[in-house]
């Protein structure tokens, strides 16, 4: 019986979305999941990640369709904001649900 439960957990781990599982990307998605949108500077301050790190992870998340990028201006300063797409929110919620099941 325990072996079956263990196997079930293994399958759950295999099912985990690798894109969301990576710690830095998970952190970025977590921050975006609780707001409507946030800009680069906010994510830099809130996550403590480097700008290079954020740029590369955001590019991957955007490519996967998890994050939408909007470029605009705040006064004369360029303002790039990020928001979670429906697909991204679904992937993030699904990941958390799977993780909770594994942990429990």
């Amino acid at each position, binding site marked *: 019986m325990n072996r079956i439960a263990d196997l079930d957990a293994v399958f759950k781990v295999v099912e985990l979305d690798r894109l969301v599982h990576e710690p830095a990307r*998970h*952190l970025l998605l*977590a*921050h975006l*999941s*609780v*707001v*409507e*949108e*946030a*800009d*680069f*500077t*906010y*994510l*830099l*301050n*809130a996550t403590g990640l480097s*700008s290079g790190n954020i740029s590369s992870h955001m590019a991957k998340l955007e490519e996967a369709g998890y994050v939408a990028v909007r470029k605009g201006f*705040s*006064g004369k*300063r360029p*303002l790039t*904001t990020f928001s979670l797409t429906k697909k991204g929110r679904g992937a993030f919620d699904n990941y958390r649900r799977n993780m909770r099941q594994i942990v429990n």
Partner: protein
Amino acid sequence: MNLDRLEEKAFGSLWDDGLIDAISGIGLVGVGAMWYFDLIQLTAALPLILIPAWQITRRRIAIPRAGFVRPSVERQVKSSRRLTQSLAIGLTVLPFFVAAIIIQMRDGGSGTSELLRRLAPAIPTVILGALLFMTAALTGRHAFRLYGLIALVAAFVGFLTGIDPWIQIVALGAIVTAIGGYHVAAFISTHPIREL
């Protein structure tokens, strides 16, 4: 990872720069000054100046340093519900505010009891204190609870000594502006503008 805490932190980042404190303080000094010059009806126009002032200073000072964040839809709904509740409470206490002004303007407060006459100079500051407590509830910024307490102390002093309301309000505003200014200075020194 606790998402509720992340959300609270994100919402709190809208007020952590101290600008809302400094501008509220300036607004309070303005209310006191208008009271002194018998232009109390003009205080209704203050939000029309203060809210854009907060938005402009936030865009110039806070966003380049701390970044921009738009709260979640749930938070926006919650905030507007709280704002509606605060407005309802505000409208309920407004008659007391008007009564206090009328009593103050009447010489000697004829026709009113002695206690009410003595309470009158304190009522406007108590009401402003209530507004400061409401702001604390609305924004989650704890400093506003302290300002609310300072308002109550100022009102109590006003009740004991009969000091004019405008003096209480200006003193309260000056304290809030000073604390807010200190927060803004601390924010600027700890959040340099990063070139991205």
